[in-house]
Every structure is written in structure tokens, then in C-alpha cells.
């Protein structure tokens, strides 16, 4: 077990290093770019003095190194600063948005897995038949549309043709804690995002199950006379899970960072929109803060995923 412990420590050390690296690179990129938050804050009645005043107030006239170090030391303490635009603490902004984002992307991933894994299994087991083609076609459908396109199509379909799903928003005013209202509002965005996630999950399930079914030990098991069903479920599926876990891992930044386009279409108050808005408005503290939080979560999840590999595939080791 010391193997595992030292591995973990090393990974955590790297993680910290990486967070610093990622934030530093982002910091530099943003400062190199033209324009700054003052243009957004002043809007159409821009004046040079107002701009200079704002820059001074936001601390943007200090040397870059000083700005970064100030930010980094505060961040290490858990203080991510305040939004340039509204003055809200970044931590609050992120915390408020994390819920809706995780709800949406979690539900979408769940939907994708629930629909796509069985489809993938079906396609692999009935490979070459109509089931295979149908399954693939269905899952590929979702991934072949841009999400903002799919979103608006679904909205039009369900608001015009079958008007009982609301086009956008989290819940009606005054009904935030009403579960049914939340669910109704979540259906279309979840569907949009889920249809898109489906393809990757389905394809990887199918291909890796096919791969696993071909393995020697499966053939041996079959030759020994074990029933097909048991062969599939017991031996093959376990190995087939590896790429599925990979795919989930790959979806993580989207999961946590928010599905930007879907959130914009459905006016969903999530992290993705927060991040995008911050980029357009040069709201540096928010950009850096969101990036840090998302990176931290993803790095942690990757670590967990890698650990999951060891459990699922005993052949993979960590010398």
C-alpha cells in the first residue's frame, strides 16, 4: 500500500504544480490581450479618465508579477477576489452557479449512460445486424448537430408543437424550490446535452465490448461451454468499462466547466455562462477563479479515474 500512498503524494504534488502552471499561463494570456474590463464597465459613454480611474481602482496599473502573486497568495487562502463587473466575491459566484451546472451536466451524463451503454452492448452483441445499425444511428444523431442548433430545434418543437416544456430558465420566479418546476425546466437542456454525450459513450462501449468479446479468455470460456450471457456479463463487460470510464473522464471539464452553448441557449445560470461572460467582459478574477476551480475538480477526478483503472483492469499497474 505504500506504493499507492507514494503515488498519491506524487500526484497531489504534481496537481498543485499544475494548478499554478495553468493559472499562470491563463494570467499571462489574458494580460497580453488587447482591451480590458474598463470598456465594459463604462459602456457606451466611455471616457479616457474614467478608464484610467477604473484601472487604478482594480489594481491593473501595478506590475504584472505583483498582480499575479497577490492573486495567487489570496487564492491559496481560499479568497478568489471580487468580480470586476459586479463586485461579488468570486467564490460566491462560483458556488451559486456550480449547483445548476452540475445538475444539468450530471443529468445529461446519466441520461447518456443509461441510454447509450445498453445501446452499445446491444450493438456489440448483435453486431452487424439491424440493431447495431439502428443503435449507432440513434447515438450518432445527437452528436452530429451543433448543440445550439439542437437546443433551438427542441425548444421550437416543444414550445410550439407541444407547449408544456418551458423554453429557458431554471424555474419560475417563486418556484425555485418546487421540484416539479425545476424538473420541467431541466428536461430540454438535459436532453440537448445528453443526446450529444450519447454518441461517445455508445461508441466506446460497443467497440471495447467487441474487443473484450474477442479476447482469448472469452473464447476459452465459450469453448468451455459457459452460457453466452454469463460470458458477456461477467468477463467482457468488466474490461469494456475501461474506455467508458475514459469517456466519462474526458467529459469532466465539460461537466464541471459547464456546457457553455447549452447554458447560453437555455439561459441556464451555470458556470459555463459565467466563464464565457467573464471572458467577453475581461473579468479577470472570475476567469482565473473559474479556471482554478474547474482545474482542481478535474485533476482530482482524473486521479480518481486513474485509480479506477487499477480496480477494473488488474493488468494495469503503477510501477
Amino acid at each position, binding site marked *: 500500500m505504500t506504493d499507492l500512498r507514494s503515488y498519491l503524494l506524487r500526484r497531489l504534488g504534481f496537481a498543485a504544480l499544475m494548478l499554478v502552471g495553468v493559472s499562470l499561463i491563463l494570467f499571462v494570456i489574458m494580460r497580453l490581450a488587447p482591451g480590458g474590463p474598463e470598456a465594459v464597465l463604462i459602456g457606451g459613454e466611455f471616457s479616457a479618465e474614467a478608464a484610467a480611474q477604473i484601472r487604478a481602482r482594480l489594481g491593473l496599473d501595478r506590475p504584472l508579477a505583483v498582480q499575479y502573486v497577490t492573486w495567487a497568495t489570496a487564492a491559496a487562502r481560499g479568497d478568489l477576489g471580487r468580480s470586476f463587473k459586479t463586485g461579488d466575491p468570486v467564490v460566491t459566484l462560483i458556488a451559486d*452557479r456550480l449547483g445548476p451546472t452540475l445538475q444539468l451536466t450530471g443529468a445529461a451524463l446519466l441520461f447518456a449512460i443509461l441510454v447509450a451503454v445498453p445501446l452499445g452492448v446491444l450493438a456489440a452483441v448483435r453486431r452487424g445486424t439491424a440493431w447495431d445499425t439502428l443503435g449507432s444511428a440513434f447515438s450518432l444523431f445527437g452528436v452530429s448537430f451543433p448543440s445550439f442548433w439542437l437546443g433551438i430545434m427542441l425548444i*421550437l418543437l416543444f414550445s410550439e408543437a407541444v407547449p408544456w416544456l418551458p*423554453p429557458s430558465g431554471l424555474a419560475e420566479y417563486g418556484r425555485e424550490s418546487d421540484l416539479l418546476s425545476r424538473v420541467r425546466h431541466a428536461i430540454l437542456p438535459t436532453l440537448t446535452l445528453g443526446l450529444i454525450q450519447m454518441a461517445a459513450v455508445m461508441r466506446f462501449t460497443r467497440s471495447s465490448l467487441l474487443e473484450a468479446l474477442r479476447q482469448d479468455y472469452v473464447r476459452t470460456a465459450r469453448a468451455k461451454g459457459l452460457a453466452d450471457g454469463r460470458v458477456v456479463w461477467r468477463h467482457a463487460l468488466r474490461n469494456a468499462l475501461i474506455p467508458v470510464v475514459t469517456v466519462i473522464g474526458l467529459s469532466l471539464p465539460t461537466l464541471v466547466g459547464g456546457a457553455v452553448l447549452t447554458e447560453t441557449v437555455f439561459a441556464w445560470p451555470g458556470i459555463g455562462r459565467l466563464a464565457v461572460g467573464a471572458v467577453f467582459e475581461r473579468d479577470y478574477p472570475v476567469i482565473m477563479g473559474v479556471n482554478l476551480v474547474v482545474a482542481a475538480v478535474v485533476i482530482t477526478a482524473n486521479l480518481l479515474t486513474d485509480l479506477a483503472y487499477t480496480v477494473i483492469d488488474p493488468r494495469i499497474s503503477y510501477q
Partner: protein
Amino acid sequence: MIHSIVLAALVVLFTLAGPRPGLGAGRDLVVGLGGDATSLNPVVATDGISYTVEWPLFDSLLELDQSLNVKPLLAESWETSRDGLTYTFKLKKGVTWHDGKPFTARDVAFTFYSVLDPKVTTPHRAYFDALAGFPELTAKENPKKPEELAVRPIEVVDDHTVRFRLRYPSGSFLAVLVNPRAGIVPEHLLKGQDLNTAEFNRKPVGTGPFKFVEWRRAERIVMEANDKYHGGRPALNRVIFRIIPDAVVLLQELRSGGVDLMENPPLTEVARLKQTAGLKVLTADNTSYTYLGWRQDVAPFTDLRVRRALNHAVDVPSMIKEVLQGYAAPATGQFPPSSWAYDASVKPYAYDPAKARALLAEAGFKPGADGILVKDGRPFTFTIRHDVANQTVKDTAVIVQEYLKRVGVDARLEPLDWPTFVKKLFASEFEGIVVNWTNHHDPDPFAYTIWHSSQWKGRNFAHYKNARVDELLEQARRTAVMAERKKLYGDFSKVLMEDAPYVFLYFPQQVYVTRQGYEGFVALPTFGGIYQSLKAVRWTGK
């Protein structure tokens, strides 16, 4: 068991059917916005959405009528001294802030001294240039405090009387005392605070017809009727501003009942919306205009013939008819047709591509091999920068590019995002631009800052310079006599059109779509004018 099933079914049905919640009498109005506000403090907020949301929360001394003349609001009456240098306002009695404290003249003085305070970041300051002591109070080095001045610009005479002193007679002084740029803020909550960052900006307290309830970032801003409003409780229960960034989705929300009022729908949809049962379309003129501009001090734009040629090259009436569906007025200068300063005798350049080509030929341009004009070996090509986020401006730029191409001018479009665009604009780093510029309903503030040659570091980023224009603008600023101002601005418009510094394109109208059954909307011909009437809007259900 059956009971619970039935109950559950009823709950499901009820919530699925979902009538909109409304407390007590009256009804809510849900307004759709394309983005979130920045700050709800009228002294410091300067973007369009913040203005919109502040308007129902804060009162100003005066408000506007349909012809954009001022009428009383918080100020019941006023007197002007003979020399035009002193304005004495009598304030309404019995007005209270949303937190119950009484509104007094001290709040008025506090508000405007804050606007003048150099430590407060607000471009509104420039509108009060006429106040006595303005240069001393707003000086960059060692600004004075109001107490240190011999002549106080703002004086609290008593609880309900406030006096303003000007340093020159100004015809626009009253006009700048209206929302959204002059809402009064409470001294008792803001004294001693830094207005730039006060918590107040997120939880505002005003004297307006609606009281702030909550602001959920990127989702909505909610306000409810002010029972104690001095003008009578508004008929509406609540006003809920919903933030929906996707314009197509916003339109869908309007159609399906999630939103009751939206502004500026895609213009091609307006005809259909007019015919949709249950929806109503309101239009009003606006003061902002869209133009094709360029650096005045850079060749070839220094040549008057070139500038006039470009004016002849663009078919504005066609653009308005086909692309804007007629919801715009052709622009002949700084002032919209609905403004009193507008001079109908100033005519735009006619669409005449042949004439354009002739003028360009006169200016020394000859068609090159690919049809692009060339002079002295250099092709007539320049970049047009514009805001990437404004769809109408983008569309306009594309059309303008095409018209220019037809007369042999190669314009390359370079859309930039807003922060970059504004920075380059005010640093005068551009060749050509297509911009939609906000305006004030009074001619002076923008006319002066855009066209006066002293403003090259400010809004005159195109570096325009014309001595006659300077003279006219200065005179117009310093007189309070309406007839004189009108004549001066008329002359100004004539000179400007002859000089052709821009291709003035159009004044886009404001178009609002609202649900049938709401009565009382009055769309004033100035930015966001409809929000002034929210206090009078009521639901009749018809």
C-alpha cells in the same frame, strides 16, 4: 392510497399547467433582457441594461413627456433667474425612500456632488459642465471641496428647496436632470461610502415606483410595487427582468408566455409578430444613430470629394427598407427627426454610384485590374472595425462593404469584441468604423463631445476639426434661448452635411413587443423610454 395518487396527480397537473404566481391584486410584468446589469446605482452605472433596470427604482428631479420636454417629478416646480444662472427647485413633500426615511433636498445635493466628485468614476459628470465651480471641483490635481468654493453650485435652501447655480446660461441644464442618468440616491445610506463599490449598488434603495427585491446574477432582477409611491401605487404587482442571452429563445419565451415584454426582436419577424394574436408591437423613434465613419486626418479621407463619394455610394433608403423593414429613419446628421434640433432642410446625399465613381476619379483614383480603385500605385482599401456582438451593426457593415465594393473601394471587415473595439476606438486606432452610437435627448452633450476639436482625446476619436463647427457648438452651449439654439444647431447640421465627415446611415427605431392585455406603455423617443411608463402600466386582460 387512492387519495395520495389523486393528490399526486393533481399536484403534477397543477404544476405542469403552471399559472404564473402573483401575490395579491394586480399582475406581474416579465421583461426579457439580453444580458445582466452591472450596477444599480444611477450615479455610477453607465451601460444600457443597468439604465433600464434602474429606471423604475429611482426617481429623478424631472421626467420627459412625449415631445421630450421636461415635466415635474420629484421637483414640483422651479424658477429660473433672469440671467439664467440660477435654478430653484421646490421638491415634492411627503416623498419617502423605499426604506421609509424621508426624501429631502440634502439627498439631491448629495447625489450631484457625488457625480462631480473626481473620486467617483462616472462619465455623467460631463453633463453638468455648466455648474458653477465645475472646473475647480473636478480638477485632476487638488480638486476643491464644495465647502471651499465661494459660489456653491448646489445649495440646500431648506428640506424641500434646492438651488443650482450655473457659470453660464445653459439650455440643456434641465434636460440632463432626467432619468436614467440623474436618478437621486439617498444620502443617509451612501454618505461616507465609496460609491464605486458600495454594497448599495447591488441592493439599491430609491424613491421610485418599484422597490428592489432580489438580484440573482445572470438570472433575473425582481422588483415589487412601492405602496408608498408619491405618484400612487403602480398597478403592476412586480416587475421581473429575466436574462435570456439568446435572442431567438427570448422571442420564443415571449410567444409561449414566459416573457411579457421584449425589446428589439429580429426585425424580419416583426411583421409576423404584428399579426400574432396575443402580442402587440410598439415602436418609437430613438436618438442613437448608426454611421460609417473614418479617421478624418488620414488620407484619402482628408479629401472632401472622397468623403462625398462614399456618401453617394451607399443606398440608405434601400437598406432601411429591405434590411431594417422600415424601422429606421435616414440620418442626416447628429439629430434624429424627432429632436427639436433637427433641421428638415438638411438633405442626405442621394444614392448615386455613378456620381461616386466620378468624384473618386476626380480625386485621382483609377480602376485597377481587379476593379479596385488605385491612386499613386496604392489601392483604395481600408479596414472597417465594428462591434462583433451587435447583430444590426454587423449586418450593416456587411452591406456597406458591398456597396463600397461596387464603386471600387475595397473595405475589409474586422469585427472586434467590445473591450478591444472600445479601446481602439478611443485610442483612435482605426481606419474605418461602423458604429451605433448612443445619444442624449438633448443635442448638446453628444454634439459637443463628438464634433468639437477640443475633444480629440474623448469622443472625437475620429479627429474631426472644423472651426465653424467649433464656433457654432460653443455658442449653442452657452445660450438658453431655444430659438437661438435651434438656429445654431440647424447651421451646425448644414455645415456637417456639406463637410461629409461620415456617411450618416440611419436612426434605428426602438421596437418593443408586448403581450396583449397590458395597457399604459408609452414608448418615448429616447433610449429606453418605455421604462419611464412602467409605473402606469396595468393589466386589463383584453
